[in-house]
């Protein structure tokens, strides 16, 4: 699949996730198992701060999403991979002036687990807002009629 088709597929899938749609997230780059998401600022997502900085939960949501998408982009067959764990470190606060970008890659896949890492930034990718590592479980299941089904079974849609 070429880069444009991969990007379109990732965006179509992202729009199926209600919470990501509510946040107005979109995929802006997708290639070689690496992805970048963009999130627009809105006052409703700010945290406990008079300046209106984005809440940490929003950054965790972005990182969980982008790391999960990096897993999907790295596996040969679409496989349901729930998050096993995630750790996020906050370097500084995000400015309310513009969008936030989140980048992730899946750097190791074993038979059972996918390992990812990523960061979020605004103007400068070398000066991130957060760093993150997350691992995902391989379920051996894919999207099928009426729910998740075993990969390779006749009910599998992908």
């Amino acid at each position: 699949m070429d880069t444009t088709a991969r990007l379109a597929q990732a965006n179509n899938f992202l729009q199926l996730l209600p919470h990501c749609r509510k946040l107005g997230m979109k995929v802006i780059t997708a290639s070689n198992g690496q992805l970048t998401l963009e999130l627009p600022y809105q006052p409703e997502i700010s945290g406990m701060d008079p300046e209106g900085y984005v809440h940490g939960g929003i950054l965790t949501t972005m990182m969980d999403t982008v790391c999960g998408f990096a897993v999907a982009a790295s596996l040969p067959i679409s496989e349901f991979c729930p998050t096993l764990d995630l750790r996020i470190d906050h370097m500084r606060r995000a400015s309310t002036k513009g969008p936030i970008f989140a980048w992730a890659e899946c750097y190791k896949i074993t038979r059972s687990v996918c390992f990812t890492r990523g960061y979020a930034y605004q103007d400068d990718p070398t000066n991130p807002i957060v760093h993150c590592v997350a691992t995902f479980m391989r379920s051996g299941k894919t999207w099928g009629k009426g729910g998740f089904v075993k990969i390779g079974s006749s009910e599998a849609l992908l």
Partner: protein
Amino acid sequence: MKLKQLIQTAKLQDNYSAILDLIPYANFIGVSITQDQQGWLFTLATESSNVGNPISPALHGGVIAGFMEVAAALAQMLTSQDPTLPKIINFSIDYVRSAGVEPTYARCNIVRQGKRIANVTVLSWQTNKLEPIATARAHFLLGEEA
């Protein structure tokens, strides 16, 4: 109003909406607070917009993490003698069960309350507290008195 005063009023009236209004994100995902003999109980309302996996369907892992981070920060603030606005340093979450689209609860434990740093653990569950959906740990930097 000063934060300490706001918290005292909320505790007296057993109404925490003024505290939650300080955190637009808490209202965005639907967090509420009650107090019982075991301490603060945090609840995440059932909202279809919190879904991350429409097939199961299941709540978005990021929403669960966000809910638990909100709970940890509030528990720290409500317990503190001199409440300040806690700044998140890092957050680590383990997902142990999938979370259905139903009310979700959290309780926190302030492991260490220092002058500058607080360490808080959070347990989250749905129907049965003995079958948690996630456990988390947060470090907060404590700033100036608000």
